[in-house]
């Protein structure tokens, strides 16, 4: 009886495996498998999901899992070739089934990563019409609105996200919004809740710790900032924003060599323009002109790559150039390009600074006022506003 049943069962599974058996396996694995894989590193997840997706190319869930792992890897490394792979996989899924919810949701996140904010907002709204109770969709909608400078709509979307599910993701966004509006205590308290909420993805926790460290750093609590950055690196070793944060703390403390070491670690992981700009300053401080020159060469190389790709916007390069009085026209061009699709306070600050450096003080003042509209406690905003105000006084009749 038992043998007969097993033979029958195996035969049935073989015939059934392509559809229903996977569905029930997927349902059963929901809680336990997710907790099993929670502690895996992203590279291991990619390997595992690649095997699953390769074995079952017709299974969109496995394809989506692989795409989500590539999106996560992009977050961790800032290496956008992973994002390209994710988009390619998602487009493949959607070419077979244009209504695949899982793929559509991930594709919206890739639109945000690619700064297609208006498109991401529209995609989010479409997904909300399909699943209003999914906090993810309200998160991507809020992100898009915030980047486009529509803070009221952004707050409403974030509020909906929090109401549906208070967790690391929604707390992190609520905290950021509080900071934008100058509520530092609220931002700190809510970011601490985000950290306490945790995530199976340790990079997510490290992201919040770096956010917390930056709030502390911008409000003059450098000791707490250092602790937060160090905690981020404990949570997720080799996290480049953590090293960069420590670099900033040490630079402000006058520990130039320590700052260089941390920025170099960050740069070795991913060559962000602001890391090169910081290292340029730090090497100049030590009198190492050769190394400083290399960092400036790197910035110019990044710009050449950016131009070769037809990019008209890059906020990081704006500050890198404007702060060092090099390629000022290019800085302004990039800042103006940024405004084409992103009208948040940070973009207006970049524009104001580039205009100031190009001696267009009146226009700089108008842009700076827009950057200051929310009362965001960004020391950089205040520094730029003071410089512009001084220049306005000097040129006043």
């Amino acid at each position, binding site marked *: 009886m*038992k043998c007969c049943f097993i033979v029958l069962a195996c035969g049935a599974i073989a015939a059934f495996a392509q559809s229903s058996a996977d569905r029930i396996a997927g349902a059963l694995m929901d809680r336990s498998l997710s907790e099993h894989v929670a502690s895996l590193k992203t590279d291991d997840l990619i390997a595992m999901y690649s095997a699953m997706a390769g074995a079952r190319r017709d299974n969109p869930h496995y394809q989506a899992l692989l795409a989500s792992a590539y999106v996560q890897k992009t977050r961790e490394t800032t290496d*956008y070739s992973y994002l390209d792979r994710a988009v390619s996989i998602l487009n493949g899924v959607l070419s077979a089934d244009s209504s695949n919810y899982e793929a559509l949701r991930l594709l919206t996140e890739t639109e945000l990563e690619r700064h297609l904010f208006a498109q991401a907002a529209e995609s989010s709204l479409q997904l909300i019409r399909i699943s209003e109770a999914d906090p993810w969709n309200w998160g991507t909608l809020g992100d898009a609105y915030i980047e486009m400078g529509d803070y009221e709509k952004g707050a409403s979307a974030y509020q909906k996200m929090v109401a549906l599910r208070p967790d690391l993701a929604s707390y992190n966004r*609520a905290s950021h919004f509080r900071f934008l509006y100058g509520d530092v205590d609220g931002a700190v308290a809510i970011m601490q809740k985000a950290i*306490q909420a945790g995530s199976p993805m340790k990079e997510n926790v490290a992201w919040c710790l770096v956010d917390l460290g930056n709030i502390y750093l911008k409000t003059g609590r450098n000791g707490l900032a250092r602790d937060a950055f160090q905690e981020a690196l404990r949570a997720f070793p080799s996290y480049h924003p953590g090293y960069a944060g420590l670099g900033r703390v040490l630079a402000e403390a006058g520990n130039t060599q320590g700052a260089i070491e941390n920025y170099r670690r960050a740069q070795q992981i991913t060559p962000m323009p602001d890391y090169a700009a910081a290292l340029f300053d730090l090497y100049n401080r030590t009198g190492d002109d050769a190394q400083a020159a290399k960092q400036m060469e790197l910035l110019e190389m990044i710009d050449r790559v950016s131009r070769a790709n037809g990019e008209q916007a890059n906020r990081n390069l704006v500050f890198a150039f404007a702060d060092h009085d090099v390629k000022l026209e290019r800085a302004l061009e990039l800042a103006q390009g940024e405004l084409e699709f992103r009208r948040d306070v940070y973009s207006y600050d970049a524009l104001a600074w580039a205009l100031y450096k190009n001696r267009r003080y009146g226009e700089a003042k108008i842009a700076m006022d827009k950057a200051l509209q929310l009362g965001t406690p960004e020391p950089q905003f205040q520094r730029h506003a003071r410089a512009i105000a001084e220049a306005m006084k000097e040129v006043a009749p």
Partner: protein
Amino acid sequence: MSQNRRIGLGLVLLAGNVFAASHRNGPLLLEDQTANLNDFYIFRSYENGKSDRLVMSMSAQGFQNPDNGPSYYKFSDSVLYRFNINNQRGLDGRPDTQIDFNFTTTLQPNPTFVSYFGTIQSIDDPGIFLYQTYTVTVRNLNTGDVTTYGTDQNGHALSVAPPNLGPKSTPNYEATLGQPSVFTLANGWRVFAGPRDDAFYFDSGATFDTLNFRAPAPVLTGGADAGAGAAYPNAVDGFAGYNISLIAVELPITAVTVDGKVPTSSTASDAKIGAWASTHRQFVTVRPSPSDPLNFGDYVQIDRVGNPLTVEALIPLPMKDYWNRSAPADDRQFAQYIGAPFFVSGILQGVYSLNVPPTPRNDLLGVYVPDITRIDLSIAPVPLAQQSRLGPLGGDNAGWPFGGRRPNDDVVDIGLRALAGVLVPGFSNTPPLGDGVNGNDVPTLDHFPFHAPPHAGYLHSQANGTNGQGTPTGQ
């Protein structure tokens, strides 16, 4: 030279997407480790001399690797862990009493890089750098009475049991750290919070391999359905050797019945209650408020668990998040899935060709709508040694689904047979379905908190293919 090469490589990788580097791409979550619940238990205490007591426990953060770093699996300070008890209105899924556990983490001054240092000789050892305490708040929702306990009856903080690191750091774990973490509150209730062995047992590996059950599953005959059942490798407990975070409370039965008495008859109006566990996080306002800069608000439900296997076997995947956020009192909205589960039509009938009862399955609706674990408090507890893993299906009514749920109840085998219709008239000769795993990897306790002590990190091994099955816990 080497650094420049790395930078050059990085630039190649960044080509075409340099602009994206400044975007504030906040995390988006699919999983929520600290707020996810695994299992909920409720049963009359079978501890010697405690049969007038009720025990409830919930497990969170499943699949804890004992050797994965002892500070990794702490309770979340941002999560409210709640027991909900429903004893009125015909058990409609609305809570009448709630028992809340709130945790606070204190990081003691730490000269080291570890959370626990040296030999931990007591629950107050100075080597415990990561120190967690909790409060217990009891709410009677009908009277509005709220009482909070922050210490035990002797004034000791309600502290979370430390992890079981191994014989050098936490020698004689259960006597030194496990049992001392059981606290008696001023009202006489006993509580526990800390790591324990996961009492759930199930051949998850075979199931997830597209129902690739090992012989003798999925129809257990003869010895496979009796006693300890088949041994490894024919039965593999996918949960063996793993720990969970357990919250447990023991309270008088009189505290949970509507009339404050111990019921003596199954037909008495106070005989049956229902209960479930849930997790919550606090609402925050996104916009700053001048009157209250923080303005933290009510708690929002993140997860819930009543009966075993509900969300795993009955609720469709796209509905799971919504189900977790919803209240048991509203479970009628899921009746279409529970009354005609795909598991029964698609798997038991479709794959295994079983003759299953017609839908709607009122037997399942009676258990799962609302999804609360019901317990008949008039049923006397059965001593651990005499318990049947099959509960009522094995002649032991003090187990799931009529007598609550005990740690040793084989809810997978009971659930498979119930889904196949064994409790439906005319279907009682359903094959003895099961996964082949008939018991937990380590013995559970005959006393509070009943779950076995946690596996020790030092002793844990996955090398033998059984995740440390059989390795004694508690040293």
